[in-house]
Structures are given as C-alpha cells and as structure tokens.
C-alpha cells in the first residue's frame, strides 16, 4: 500500500540528478540556484525515506531524519536569501545574471 523505500530513493536520485544536470548546463544564476534547491529537496526526500524505513524497522520514529530536514529547509531559505542578494549585486555590476559573464581570472 505504501511506496517502497527503494522507489523513494530512486525518485530522490532522479531529482538530484536533474538538479546536478541543471547545475552543469544552465548559465542563468537563478536557474542554477533553482537546480541547487532541487538537489537539496532530493536530499530531503531521501532523508525522510530513510527515516520512514528505519521507523518501520525499529517500530518507532527517530528524530534525526525530520530534524535534519527541518534544518535543511531553514538553511535553504537562508542560502536563497544570500544567493539572491549576491545575484542582485552581480547584476548591478554586470547587468546580467549569466554565469558566462563572470570575469575570467586568467588572462
């Protein structure tokens, strides 16, 4: 009746891979940030899947999984705030949000 842990993990891995792929191929910082969010949420999914898995094994829920997820959500918000601030600062300087427009450090 419930979804098996394996499937949840596969889903998580898929999401994570999509995030990674997005991170690799996209140049728009906003999209890159979104990709990272996707990866974080994939991790969250995996955490919760694991927590459920071990809860079913031990018969009671452990705090670690959900706690971790809570922290991740909070931190993700902070990261998003800082990230967007940086993007704005970047945009002010360069009038673009493309990572390709970063000044090369080697001449």
């Amino acid at each position: 009746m419930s979804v098996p842990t394996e499937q949840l993990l596969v889903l998580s891995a898929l999401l994570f891979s999509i995030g990674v792929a997005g991170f690799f191929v996209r140049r728009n910082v906003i999209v890159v940030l979104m990709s990272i969010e996707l990866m974080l949420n994939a991790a969250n999914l995996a955490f919760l899947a694991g927590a459920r898995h071990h809860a079913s094994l031990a018969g009671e829920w452990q705090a670690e999984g959900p706690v971790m997820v809570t922290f991740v959500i909070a931190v993700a918000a902070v990261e998003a705030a800082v990230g967007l601030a940086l993007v704005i600062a970047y945009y002010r300087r360069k009038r673009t949000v493309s990572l390709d427009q970063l000044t090369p450090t080697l001449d």
Partner: protein
Amino acid sequence: MNPEILNELYAGAGAALAPLLWLAAGLSAVLIADVFAGLKAVRPVLVPLTLGGAAWSAGALISDPAGAVLGGSFLADARTGAFALVFLASAALAWAQARRYYTEEAPFLGEHDALLLTAPMGMILMAGAQDLILFFVGLELLSIPLYCLSAFRRARTESVEAGLRYFVLGAFGVALFLMGAALLYTLTGSVSLEGLAAAKELLASPMGATGLALLLASLFFKAGVAPFHLWVPDVYQGAPTPIASLMATGTKAAAFAFLLRLVPALPAEAGVGLGLVAVVTMAIGNLGALGQTDLKRLFAWSGVAHAGTLLLVIAGAVAAGGTDHQEAVRNAAFSATLLYVAAYAFSAGGALGLVAWMEADGEEYRSLSRWQGLGTVRPGVAAGMTLFALSLGGIPATGGFLGKWLAFSTAVRAELVPLAVLGALTSVVALGYYLRIVVDLWMRPRPEDAAAPSAERPLAAFAAGFSAAMVLALGVAPGLLLGRLIG
C-alpha cells in the same frame, strides 16, 4: 515541550558552549553598537573583547573539558578547545587586518565584524560535531557569512564575483553533502559519527560508498583538496584579503578538525587512496603556485598544497586503523593536524595580513613584482614576509617545519613511506615559489617607479608581529605552547 528533555539537553552546556555564547553575544553587541551612534566609542573594543572572551573560555576547555553536550551532538573536549583557539586566532588576525583595509565600505564595518564573528562559531561547531546534523549547521554557519564577506566590497566586480563563485559552488557542495548524509542515514539509520563508525561494513556497499564519497567531496571542497580546489585561487584573489586569510586558515582548519573526527568511520583500506589524493593535491597546489605573480593567488595555490599535506595526516590516521598502534598514530595525527593548522594560521594569516597591510599603499601590492626590493625600504615587512614564507616552506626554526615533520611522521608511521617521500619532494617545488618571494624582497632592486610605501597601520603591524612571534615559538618551543594544550 518537556522541560526535562531540555534539562537533559543543556546540562553542563554552559561551559561547553561558552565560546559559542561569547561569539553570539559579541556579534549581537556589535550589531547593536552599530545601530546606536552613542555606542560608537565601544565599537573598537567589542570584537577583541569577544574574541578574547571566547578564547579564554576555549582555553578553559583544554584544561577542563566539558564533554559531550546537546544530547551528545557536540563534544567540547580539549581538542575542540584547542582547535577553537586556532579558529579564533585566525578570526582575530582577519579582524586586525581588516582595520583600515576597507575604504568605501568603511561605514559597513559593523556588519563585517558581525559576520566575522559568526564564522568561528561555525568552525567551532564543526570541530566539535559528533553528528552530521550539527556539522551541517556548523558548515552553513561558517559558509554563509563567508559568502557575504567575500562579496563585501560590493562596489567591486571582483569581490562580488568572488562571492558569487564561492556561493554557487559552495551551495553545490552543500547539496552534495546533504545527499551523501541522506544516503548514509538511510543505509545505517544513524547520523552520528559513532553510529557510522559502528556500521563501517555497511559503508562498503554502493550506496554507502556513494554517500561517503559525496560527504568527503564536500569536505574536500571546503578544504580545497584537489580536484575540488579550482575555486580557491579565484575566490581568494577576488575576496578582500582579510577574508581570504580567514578562508585559508580558519575554514581549512575546521574542515580538517572534522575530518579528524570522521577518521574512525573510514575503513583502513581507504588510507592509501586518501594518501594518493593528498599527494596529488600537494603536487597540484605547489605546481599551480609556481608561476603565480599575484600574491593572493599564489597563497591560494599554496593553501591547496597545504591542504594536501594535512590530508596526508588524515590518510595516515585512516591507514593505521586496525593496527596495534592505531591509537598512537591517531594521537600523532591530532598533534600533527593541530600544530600544522596553528602554524599555517599564523604563517599564511601573517603573510596575507602583510599583503592586506601593503594594499593600503595601492592595489598593485597584490602583485609580487611590487614587492621587489622591499627589504631595503620596509625591512620589517620584508622580514616578516620572509619568515612566513620560510615557515610555509617548512624551514626549521618555524612552526611550519615542525608541522611538516609531524605530518610526515604520521604518514611514515602508518607505513605510507613512498607517499611521504613523494610529498616531501613536492615541497621542493613549494620552496621554488616561496624562495621567489624572498628573492624579490631582498635580492632584486626596488623598481624605479615604486614610491616608498608609507602606510602605517599599527594594528596590522601588531598582528604581523604577533604572528611572527607565534611562528617562531611554534617552531622552537612547541612544547611550551602546545604541550600543555594537547596534553
């Protein structure tokens, strides 16, 4: 909420968390003082006071360890205390360097200082973390202020770009860490280091291996271990110099402090692999630094090499796992790491501090060529830079030498002799560029268009002098400084 649980959770936490509390209180005070003009007079003393208090309470942990608190998540033992001192020292150096470093950003120094005080909190949490959750919190507490600080000179493209680069890659690294932690948790049902160490055999499965690899990848990223080092030169170069100094010394120290904690969870067979990564890192870092002309970039590459040496220590500690001298080697690994990061904090911190100091005379002092012949006009600065360079190169009478000696000792005792030899040979390359600095300082004439530098910065001078004294003290009488500390 059940007060009993809280009681249990925070029993004895006062002493254990005192350094963190000092920092938290301090940064609040800084922010408050920043808002109220009437408190202007106290602003300059707040940060030293905070750092001093934190250091004092961290020192107390050494002689009187508080043990595990927060439900076993945070271990405030002597090691944590010792590392905390290093973090605080590097934060203090960064703070001292930052005075009068910023010009157009000077009005925002309060924010700067508040962020500067946040980072060591993260570092201390990392050093004492006993599970991945607390480590994650520490990591973020360290990283996020640094993202901001890197981009602190927001009127400058390079600074903003450094912050953006660091952030994008850092966030990616955190995501990797989280995925790794999630996999490990799903596999073992535990996020505590103890639990991971107990389930070591599970880690050999594909899922465990992937989890561990992702975990290490994120740590390697923070520490700047090859091939996760590529961001290091770019970010150090773009970030304000004091921040680069803090990243180089504090972040690296924190990452390795946690890696030391992680050692029991790693299978002994991984030792050789880690050693190889270490040697490759040393080689890449040193070779990369060889041709650099920008001092910050040069020290960035050299920092990569030092991360390699530190990883060699970890590799030794891992490789010795399961042998009958496991304990001895792990103790040695701790001594080595502590002495190494302490020496590195003062050497690299001192060197970058001098760069920051001279930058007050013009940005061009980031370039090594501007330092040519400085020995004749600013012998003190040149002598300091020479001492720091020699210490980074591991020449005796400096802490760098004893650090190197202990690091290789650990590797040799774990029977990683060929790796130790290779690593030793890469430090010949290292001397290649450290000597180049010394050559420029003393053995070349001053460029004709170079005006005599005039910037007088007593605090930076004091910081440099203190660093130099510490470098020498660590090199000549390590027992005096660390013997009690470690013992």
